[in-house]
């Protein structure tokens, strides 16, 4: 079961769809969940508007690698202090599905593409945002 982290800044609430409801709620029990088609075993991206008929949520290890990232230095929101890292990660079990996230608990100059990371969850209203930290 993955750790929970304390929010440090306000966040925009996630957009919830049938494809990502489990993704945003699994964190309540510390689990990263992605839908998979029961017939074809194909993973369904939480961020596509594809049909979820015949799909079931699967709990994954929460292990991922950094696909790309940017260190943001510009202050876009009065209550969100830069610098912080916005990234896309790919899950070890479901490569090809890219997850937008923040890399946390890591110096901004230590982040590299391909770096192993693991999920932690940050509560956001009634949902839980998957964030990722270095998996040493």
């Amino acid at each position, binding site marked *: 079961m993955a750790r929970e982290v304390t929010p440090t800044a306000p966040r925009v*609430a996630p*957009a919830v769809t049938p494809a990502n409801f489990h993704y945003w709620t699994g964190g309540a029990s510390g689990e990263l969940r992605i839908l998979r088609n029961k017939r074809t075993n194909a993973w369904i991206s939480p961020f596509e508007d594809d049909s979820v008929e015949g799909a079931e949520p699967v709990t994954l290890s929460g292990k991922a690698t950094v696909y790309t*990232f940017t260190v*943001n*230095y*510009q202050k876009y929101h009065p209550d969100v202090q830069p610098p912080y890292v916005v990234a896309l990660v790919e899950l070890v079990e479901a490569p090809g599905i890219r997850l937008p996230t923040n890399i946390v608990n890591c110096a901004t100059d230590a982040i590299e593409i391909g770096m192993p990371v693991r999920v932690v969850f940050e509560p956001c209203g009634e949902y839980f945002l998957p964030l990722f930290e270095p998996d040493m």
Partner: protein
Amino acid sequence: MIDTPEKRSIISGIGLSRTGRKTGISSLELTLESSRQAIADAGLTPADIDGIATMGETPLQDVIAALELEPGYRGGGFDTGGLLSPVISAFFAAGAGKARHILVYRTVQMMGGSVLPPRNADSSAAEAPPRRDNAMTDMRYLLPYHGYAAPNWLGMHCQRHMHLYGTKKEQLGWLAVNSRRNAGLNPGAVYRDPFTLDDYMNARMISTPFGLLDCDVPIDGSVAVVVSTADYAKDCPRAPIYVESIGGSNGDGGWFRRADYPKMASVDAAAELWGRTDLKPKNIDFAQLYDGFTFLTFAWLEALGICGEGEAGPFVDRATRIALEGEMPLNTYGGQLSAGRMHGYWILHEACLQLRREAGPRQIRKAANVAVVAAGGGPIAGCMLLRV
């Protein structure tokens, strides 16, 4: 020859308003400035204009009233042609004989920049299929992660490109240096003093790898063109600009879901462009490519086949090939990086000026008979091949 509707249209006139930062000039006044210029440049009067199109905040009806136009065709808004959609839809409308002379304008003010559809747009003019809802709106999944702005979204494309191909920040810098050098020859450019690669490298960071000088400069201004039916070419007082082909994208894959990431919608648009012409990338004499961020120009260079995949960095390096006197003059007016952000319309104006050999001190010396104009980034892309 491949016959397409855009080939039956020409650009007969162009206009550019005063430009500057926080000018205090109203968007309507800027629009009338560029529009009157374009209409006169085409050898026409407002009474000859029977179509109008735009994108953005300056409403069609205000311009129609001020110029006393009676347009049968009203188009514009956002479509598969991205920022250039109003121009491309005008090519199609003129090519199909729906109007003879269409005024197309784009007016921006530095605090604005929306691509909201104009009120009064003729929805029947939209011939492209509707965009998938999710194509662009996947940015809503970046917002909870404080990915609020385009430098964040596109910085990630750039970082991935650097990882895959060894692209260097210095190479992005050479594009910015080259554009500033060109802006020095353009009295309308907002920033004209040259800077060095060191200045570029030392600029304050915005979102890695983009620093301040990787980002375009918001300005106030307006560009207008008159799109006419091709049979007007013989009466056109200026060299008519022929439309060879166009390309666009429906934006599938959005900001981060394309299988071929860090490629962008620009590859779809370029593929459509080359599918509608017998010309090849080697026929391009010069390029005016969108540079809302430096990396977007790199993406277009590769998408259009001006250089190979992953080779934009070496192509731009040292700013020799892309210089005014180089083999592929690029953003000859200074680009949005230095001349100012006209949302893809100044590149169109400059392409026409260069093709007409009216660019004055910054005129390309070698043959300049075929130009590519391409605008957009991420899921937004539209491009056109123009010639004299």
